[in-house]
């Protein structure tokens, strides 16, 4: 895997798919002209975030004609973007779609919908039901939508799949304006950086984060899109509140070096986890030592 990634920190117009689509095309074309192989957009980048009843109005099938120009452009540059996806059985998903070579290569449907505090996603979306790894000509990718990264399960599955990079798309609202040592920005952004860095360290892979900016009914999205190296270090990040793009390189050589230095993947013991999950349900860890057959 050696590729040039462009991370697009956009400000989608709530509910205006044609305007947002235009912006996707503009940014993806510019990224391609700049030598990018892949461009990553934020969560629900095509529709905006607090959709409520608009989910039903805006959700589209993956073969919707509106997506044709993006598919066409994906022959020049692979594109990962967020949309409200309609399913034939009536469900709608909060989806992250991977386009490559003019096709839908894969789609991640948000598994961990967030429905507490200011969020109410479960009311409008159905949860995704799998953690599939995207096998792209550029490398192996694990796709995450915001809250997905806060649960270890999805990360762990991707670690077992030996992904090269976690591509994380968010519409993360900024919260907390207290003073912080030496940095300026929402307190929630610091929390995200800790989480992303830890995910990179656990998986020994790159972690790319596209988080949107802008406001919807007074809620500020915190931006701060970033790339973390497989050593967990923050490589580069965008200013919190502005739209912008990051252009970054991801290399196999660096991945191999990190994995040689810290052979966590070699030393993982998934069979123990499998045994614990197989025999003990939600309180698995208590039974780790018990003599039960692996399921």
């Amino acid at each position, binding site marked *: 895997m050696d590729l040039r990634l462009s991370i697009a920190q956009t400000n989608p117009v709530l509910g*205006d798919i044609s305007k947002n689509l235009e912006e996707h095309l503009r940014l993806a074309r510019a990224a391609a002209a700049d030598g990018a192989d892949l461009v990553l957009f934020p969560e629900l980048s095509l529709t905006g975030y607090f959709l409520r009843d608009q989910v039903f109005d805006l959700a589209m099938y993956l073969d919707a004609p509106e997506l044709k120009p993006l598919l066409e452009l994906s022959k020049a540059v692979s594109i990962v973007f967020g949309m409200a996806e309609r399913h034939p059985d009536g469900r709608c998903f909060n989806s992250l779609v991977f386009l490559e070579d003019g096709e839908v290569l894969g789609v991640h449907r948000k598994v961990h919908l967030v429905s507490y505090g200011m969020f109410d996603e479960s009311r409008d979306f159905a949860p995704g039901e799998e953690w599939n790894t995207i096998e792209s000509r550029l490398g192996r990718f694990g796709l995450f939508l915001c809250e997905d990264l806060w649960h270890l399960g999805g990360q762990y599955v991707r670690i077992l799949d030996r992904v090269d990079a976690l591509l994380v798309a968010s519409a993360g609202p900024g919260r907390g304006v*207290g003073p912080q040592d030496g940095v*300026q920005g929402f307190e929630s952004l610091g929390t995200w950086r800790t989480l992303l860095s830890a995910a990179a360290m656990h998986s020994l892979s790159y972690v790319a984060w596209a988080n949107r900016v802008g*406001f919807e*009914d*007074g809620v*500020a999205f915190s931006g701060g899109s970033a790339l973390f190296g497989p050593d967990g270090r923050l490589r580069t990040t965008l200013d919190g509140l502005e739209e912008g793009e990051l252009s970054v390189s991801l290399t196999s050589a660096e991945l191999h070096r990190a994995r040689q230095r810290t052979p966590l993947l070699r030393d993982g013991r998934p069979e123990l986890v499998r045994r614990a999950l197989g025999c003990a349900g939600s309180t698995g860890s208590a039974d780790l030592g018990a003599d039960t057959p692996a399921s």
Partner: protein
Amino acid sequence: MSNPLDIDPAFTTEVLVRFLREELASAGFSRALVGLSGGIDSAVSLALAARAFGPDEVLGVMMPYRTSNPDSEAHARLVARELHVPTRRVDISAMVDGYLDQESVPSGMRRGNVMARMRMVVLYDLSEEWRGLVIGTSNKTEMLLGYSTLWGDSAHAVNPLGDLYKHQVYQLARHLEIPTEVVDKPPSADLFEGQTDEDELGFSYAEADRLLYPMIDERHTEDELVGSGFDRDFIRLVAGRIVRNQYKRVMPVIAKLSHRTINQDFRYLRDWKS
């Protein structure tokens, strides 16, 4: 010692300036107007609006009543002058008295509420002429306590201060270099002579903020708050005000009859586009 209510005023200013710009743009506007009382809240709202849209695009509106404290108007003018914001003065005495005299409204709260609502009438009329939106000046402390006039000072299009406790408004005011005469005077609704908010409430904003932060933001229980040193009667007084005034913080309730009722199961943001 650090105060858990402390904010980063520079960053908060940046967020609020962008908030004003983007929320007004979303409604198709790039001009604003602020009713100026001469107090700290409207001074901060005006300063934020001036930064967001440029001073020439913001109108400061002074609406004195014949018994208003002359300092209020002087302070309002001072703030607008420092910010290079144009002002407009509308004396509400005739319109207020026209109603008060005709209906023999007794002095006190009713008269104060009439004045606050007449100011709303003026602001919303001028917003048409100015082609701008009315920027709110209510802070989180007074909104929680319900210390406002429904459809009076509580009426506005967008509110940059509604998630800031009074303590935080003071921090922002100092950062925005609001004149000290305005920052340091006792907060007053100036609805009758000698009125101050803190006399009327029976406690200070500083006392209220100290309690509201753990009670609301941290969701501490009454027993936990007593354990932290707060007086139980004070906790109940404040909690009672918060509950009693919930109606001022929401839109009127609608009798649900159909399958799809506004705000129940007809759910769209105000920033709704299609």
